[in-house]
């Protein structure tokens, strides 16, 4: 019973179960299409509050995984507690190690503003106090006492000197005492002329006075230190009132926040120790901006409150997507200011990273971008593993020279990291990085397709409506939506599935909308969608056209009419970028006496891949097992893809190769109007292959170019019928009987279609009926086996005879 050609309905499953006028009639789609598994994984992963349960979202990029996941995270985060604010403040005991303080949400800016006003107040209050009458009087008293002490000492010395006719003089290095006579320093000759007793008296006086002078000068530093101590104590005493008052006021506002209270006490101590900084500086120092020193915070910057995380604008937990996940963008950075040619920094220049901003919530990262940034992946793992965010500069990570910088106190981390990436990246990380599974225990696997049912079709229409509104496209009418749904099935090469890569449908919708615009249509119709599809095919179709052109011009030998023994049209699929197309390829088979070997020439020259070779070995075994099973397979056959100069991979040609071999062995010619695709197993069953639509369309295009005769067609595996979503012109030609698609289950069905001769089944006598394909094949194999047996008796060294 010959296999009938498939009907147009089997070649293309139309979408006809929608009922609305345009997408304006449809509500938005709020859920996800066909991603229940992934969304359950995300829900599970976000729900577990245990370390390591971070999420890797894998799957094709156009599935909407990003939007869906973010939408889910945002919805979940909005119901969660808003995390703390974080500030960095000066560590007054070690300025290289700024202190991190957590604060209730919204309190960080309040503390910062309070500290600013506190310092401003002190800058007014303290100078006022120190310029006040009381302070001036007491400070003058201290200075006067010091001066008085000095004056008394020197006056006393000078008085003594005067009584002994001695004067105090300046020398380049200090002071000296000079004996006078008549108001002038005694000259050496005058001294020489003096009586010995007088000289001794002068010398003795001078030595006594010098001793006293030395004593005074040695005491001066101690007196001055005493003066400075007294002034410091006075400063402290005067400052205490103003400082205590301001600090206590501030502390009252932050009661219940022990970290802040500790900090404010530290501020109090520091202000008391640096009261001088609050007082007006000499003219020479005024006017310059408050500088940052080479080390540490100085001036009033030391009292800054650096708000690194301010969640005051958040409702719920944060969801942060970091588009550029460098180390610094993740863990924050320490900025520097150029000062007099040197780069200086302080805690106020610490900047938050995405980990800080997302702390207490969710951080979303693109795996590919993360992995492409130096040290970013290692840093993220280290942070997740330690549970603390340390601000690290890249130079700290890679520089062999350790420069003095800040070491901000690490901030405890409570975060869920969600990584997005392709499946290849996920499996690569899983295989290559032993820490990966430990840190990303949840995989949310977004599928690229889902079942095509009436319900999912309806939801798909809603998705199209939502997309049209989101991108402000014209409404799509029902036929347009149906065409889009049908195209969604074609994109996955499956009439019973729809693509989950909504991005590809959205692209097509935008292009269809543009076509509608060009055609001045208010609503996008089926024609616009069809034109958009064709335009896209045309845009990328240059290589396909060149390949088909080579066949039409006879450069590639493909027959589409007549019959030939041992020659068949196989079908191959080529994929280059976004373009996937099918084209026929001539396969030929030759056989002669041999030792049961089927030579795959593609493999011999290393143009055939392992799967193709596997297919050839299977067909060889089919041959040996199916025909003359009680005799050794005694042929040497060769199979080749003619004019194939690139590699051949896959087993979808194994059926065609077997048909060619059967034709060679049986001597029955094959109809060249037909092309074949399908793989075969050892029992002669035809198995499904990929790219069935492209393969059929590829052969159709060749035949159509030469003129459809009504004889042409393609044999496909019956299992592939469910995948058929053929082009409209192919379906139309099939409907008109000008082109045929046959779905075959067995080699027997296929060889009958190809040769027009019954394949034959073994009768009770164990033989295939006479004249059938299989009988002719078996007879030939027996003949070869007998010949081999005869030759085997002769000298094995002699060359094997050629077959006629």
């Amino acid at each position, binding site marked *: 019973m010959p296999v009938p050609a498939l009907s147009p309905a089997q070649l293309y499953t139309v979408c006809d179960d929608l009922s609305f006028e345009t997408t304006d009639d449809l509500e938005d789609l709020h859920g996800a299409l066909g991603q229940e598994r992934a969304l359950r994984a995300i829900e599970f992963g976000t729900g577990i509050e245990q370390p390591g349960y971070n999420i890797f979202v894998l799957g094709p990029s156009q599935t909407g995984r990003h939007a869906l996941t973010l939408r889910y995270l945002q919805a979940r985060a909005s119901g969660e507690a808003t995390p703390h604010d974080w500030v960095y403040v000066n560590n007054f005991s070690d300025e290289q190690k700024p202190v991190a303080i957590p604060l209730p949400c919204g309190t960080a800016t309040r503390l910062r503003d309070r500290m600013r006003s506190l310092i401003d107040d002190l800058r007014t209050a303290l100078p006022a106090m120190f310029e006040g009458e009381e302070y001036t009087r007491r400070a003058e008293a201290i200075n006067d006492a010091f*001066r008085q002490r*000095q*004056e008394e*000492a*020197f*006056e006393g010395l*000078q008085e003594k000197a005067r009584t002994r006719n001695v*004067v*105090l*003089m*300046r*020398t*380049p*290095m*200090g*002071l*000296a*005492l*000079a*004996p006078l006579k008549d108001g*002038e*320093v*005694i*000259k*050496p000759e005058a*001294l020489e002329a003096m009586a010995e007793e007088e000289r001794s008296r002068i*010398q003795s006086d*001078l*030595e006594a006075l*010098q001793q006293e*002078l*030395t*004593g005074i*000068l*040695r005491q*001066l530093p101690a007196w001055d230190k005493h003066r400075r101590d007294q002034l410091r104590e006075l400063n402290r005493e005067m400052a205490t009132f103003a400082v205590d008052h301001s600090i206590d006021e501030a502390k009252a506002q932050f009661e219940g926040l022990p970290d802040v209270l500790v900090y404010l006490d530290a501020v109090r101590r520091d202000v008391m120790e640096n009261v001088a900084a609050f007082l007006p500086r*000499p*003219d020479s120092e005024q006017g310059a901006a408050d500088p940052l020193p080479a080390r540490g915070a100085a001036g009033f910057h030391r009292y800054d409150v650096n708000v690194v995380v301010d969640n005051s604008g958040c409702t719920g937990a944060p969801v942060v997507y970091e588009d550029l996940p460098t180390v610094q963008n993740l863990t924050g950075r320490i900025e520097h200011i150029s000062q007099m040619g040197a780069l200086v920094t302080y805690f106020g220049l610490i900047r938050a990273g995405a980990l800080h901003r997302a702390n207490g919530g969710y951080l979303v990262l693109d795996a590919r971008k993360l992995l492409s940034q130096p040290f970013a992946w290692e840093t993220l793992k280290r942070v997740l593993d330690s549970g603390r965010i340390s601000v690290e500069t890249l130079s700290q990570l890679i520089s062999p020279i350790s420069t003095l910088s800040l070491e901000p106190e690490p901030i405890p981390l409570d975060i869920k990291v969600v990584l997005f990436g392709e499946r290849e990246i996920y499996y690569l990380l899983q295989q290559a990085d032993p820490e990966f599974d430990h840190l990303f225990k949840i995989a949310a696997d977004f599928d690229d397709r889902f079942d095509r049912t009436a319900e999912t079709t309806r939801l798909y229409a809603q998705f199209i409506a939502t997309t049209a509104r989101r991108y402000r496209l014209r409404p799509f009418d029902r036929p347009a939506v149906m065409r889009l749904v049908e195209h969604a099935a074609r994109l996955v090469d499956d009439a019973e599935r729809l693509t989950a890569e909504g991005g590809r449908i959205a692209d097509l919708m935008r292009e269809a909308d543009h076509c509608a615009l060009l055609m001045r249509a208010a609503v996008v119709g089926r024609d616009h969608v069809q034109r958009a599809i064709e335009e896209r095919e045309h845009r990328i179709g240059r290589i396909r056209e060149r390949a088909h052109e080579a066949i039409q011009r006879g450069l590639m030998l493909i027959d589409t009419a007549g019959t030939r023994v041992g020659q068949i049209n196989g079908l191959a699929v080529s994929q280059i970028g976004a373009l996937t197309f099918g084209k026929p390829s001539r396969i030929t088979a030759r056989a002669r006496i041999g030792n049961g070997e089927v030579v795959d020439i593609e493999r011999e020259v290393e143009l055939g891949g392992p799967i193709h070779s596997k297919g050839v070995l299977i067909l060889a075994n089919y041959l040996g097992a199916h025909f003359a099973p009680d005799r050794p397979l005694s042929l040497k056959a060769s199979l080749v893809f003619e004019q194939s100069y690139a590699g051949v991979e896959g087993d979808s040609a194994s059926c065609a190769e077997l048909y060619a071999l059967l034709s060679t062995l049986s001597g029955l010619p094959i109809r060249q109007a037909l092309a074949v695709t399908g793989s075969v197993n050892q029992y002669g069953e035809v198995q499904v292959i990929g790219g069935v639509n492209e393969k059929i369309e590829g052969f159709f295009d060749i035949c159509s170019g030469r003129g459809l005769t009504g004889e042409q067609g393609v044999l496909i595996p019956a299992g592939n019928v469910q995948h058929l979503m053929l082009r409209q012109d192919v379906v139309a030609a099939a409907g008109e009987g000008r082109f045929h698609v046959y779905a075959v289950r067995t080699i027997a069905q296929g060889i009958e279609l190809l040769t027009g001769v019954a394949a034959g089944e073994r009768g009770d006598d164990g033989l295939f009926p006479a004249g059938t394909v299989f009988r002719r094949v078996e007879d030939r194999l027996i003949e070869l086996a007998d010949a081999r047996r005869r030759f085997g008796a002769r000298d094995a060294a002699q060359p094997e005879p050629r077959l006629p």
Partner: protein
Amino acid sequence: MRPVEIGYRFRRTVVALDGSVESRGALERAAEVAGWLETDFSGVFFEDEDLLALSALPFSREVSLGGRSRALDAVALEGELRAQARRARRAIEDLARLRRISCGFEVVRGRLQNMLLAQAQQADLLMLPRSSEPMTRSTGLARLAADVAASATASVLVFDPRKPPGPGPVVTLVDEPENAARTLAVAKDLCRHMRRPLRVLVTAGDAEALASNAEALQAALTADPATRADIRPVETTGKDALLEALADPSGALVVASADTLGAAGIVSLIRRSRAPVLILRARPQG
């Protein structure tokens, strides 16, 4: 109103220098004031003959400010004085280049007071650094500042280079119209440069003259809107109250005519005032 416009101009200004710490800072301040007064200035480095005589005595010693004593060697002293003079010359030359002014420099040797008075005869303005430190104010140039200011024939500016001017006003004392014009012109000019207010103490021999002086002064200052002045009549001259008023502890500068103050008043004012004191004397125009 500028000094030159009323015929008062310092043509030659001399700053007195010795090996003291004060002298090192004096140059910078002196150059600044000379710039304000639009006068060139020269540095004169004084080598004290008494000091050289002392170094020749067999038992002379010097005590460093840190309290260490050592023999005062005449050769070393000469060398050190020469080195200090060289440093002073370089400093003056640097200042001249920096401020684009004409500067001179010379080294003289003799008894300090005699030398200072001699210099004062050749100059319009003598700038004398002094020290307010108890340890050094009775030594070297500082010891003689008040006396030289009182007896010199030129105007004298006595200042402590290590102390910046106070935040208060420029205080000046005026009496007769002729003296008042000169003193006010200089005081106003310095006020403008120092960005300080002007306080004018008006005095006279009797109440009638005081009222007349104050009225004339008020009229003169009102005509010059650029100067805001605080005018304070003072009824007595040469008394403590007047000197007290002049020696305002917060004052930036005191400007007074030598004729108004008298020698005793000058000495007393310089000893009392912590601010720089400029004693003005009229010089024949040439």
